[in-house]
């Protein structure tokens, strides 16, 4: 049973969810965002980019599906990194610990943090995505960098029809699975789900990389940006 420290209790013990990642297209009179402009020449690179969310009653992991071969070059790092899609995100519901294994600033890190509650604003708006009736919820993703503090809206569509409080890139804690997530013009969309896999799902805890806290990782990033080219 997944509780995640939230009020939702589901009888779903394990599952595999797949997500695609793409750029939100500009519609009507909307102004193209920085992200939309930046990734415009690389749209085809997103086509085969898939992510997998695996979960059991005690653990979950979210990562890019490596069955789709992507060379480890600078462009692919940028494409995979779009919408915070880099690395392996692991969470243990019992110990309430999160790990994010990722390659950044020329090294591999294992960023450890506590499983905290996302302050969601639940909205009445609903829409049908595939066969799932989804409801809108939103929160804010805060970035503090050398240029200032930025508050990026995160909009998700979750479905109570799948009572699993999880979703892409570590978001969760809603009364249903996140079927779609939009952040900074990047959209994660569910493409498949298997709640009755034949085999028992085994989740590997990521172990590689220098173990750091979020604050330490942040400091390393700031220093790396300051030293770029030196």
């Amino acid at each position: 049973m997944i509780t995640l420290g939230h009020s939702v209790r589901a009888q779903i013990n394990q599952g595999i969810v797949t997500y695609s990642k793409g750029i939100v297209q500009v519609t009507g009179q909307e102004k193209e965002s920085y992200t939309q402009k930046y990734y415009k020449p690389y749209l085809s690179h997103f086509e085969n980019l898939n992510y997998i969310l695996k979960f059991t009653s005690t653990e979950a992991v979210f990562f890019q599906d490596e069955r789709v071969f992507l060379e480890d070059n600078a462009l692919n790092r940028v494409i995979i990194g779009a919408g915070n899609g880099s690395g392996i995100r692991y969470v243990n519901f019992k110990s309430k610990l999160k790990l994010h294994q990722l390659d950044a600033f020329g090294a591999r890190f294992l960023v450890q943090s506590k499983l905290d509650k996302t302050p969601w604003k639940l909205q009445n708006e609903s829409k049908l995505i595939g066969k799932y009736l989804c409801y809108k919820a939103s929160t804010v993703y805060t970035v503090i960098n050398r240029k200032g503090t930025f508050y990026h809206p995160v909009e998700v569509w979750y479905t109570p029809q799948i009572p699993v409080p999880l979703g892409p890139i570590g978001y969760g804690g809603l009364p249903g699975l996140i079927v779609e997530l939009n952040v900074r013009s990047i959209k994660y969309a569910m493409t498949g789900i298997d709640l009755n896999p034949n085999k028992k799902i085994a989740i590997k805890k990521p172990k590689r990389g220098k173990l750091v806290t979020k604050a330490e990782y942040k400091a390393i990033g700031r220093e790396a940006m300051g030293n770029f080219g030196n």
Partner: protein
Amino acid sequence: MKKVVLGMVFVFAMFIGNANETAVFADRNCVEEAMIEGDKAEEEGASEQEAYDKADLAYLRCEADKG
């Protein structure tokens, strides 16, 4: 004769054009270009990791252009 002179002028113009192009590439400061890309990303609210990766890509592309 006129054709030959015109041909020589064309070749000379091509040479000057290419020389200028080469000079432009040689003068490019890839570290500066990378930092501009990284700064731009941060100004748009990117995390340091995203900005660093974009700066890295800009640097490598610039160096590749320079040959």
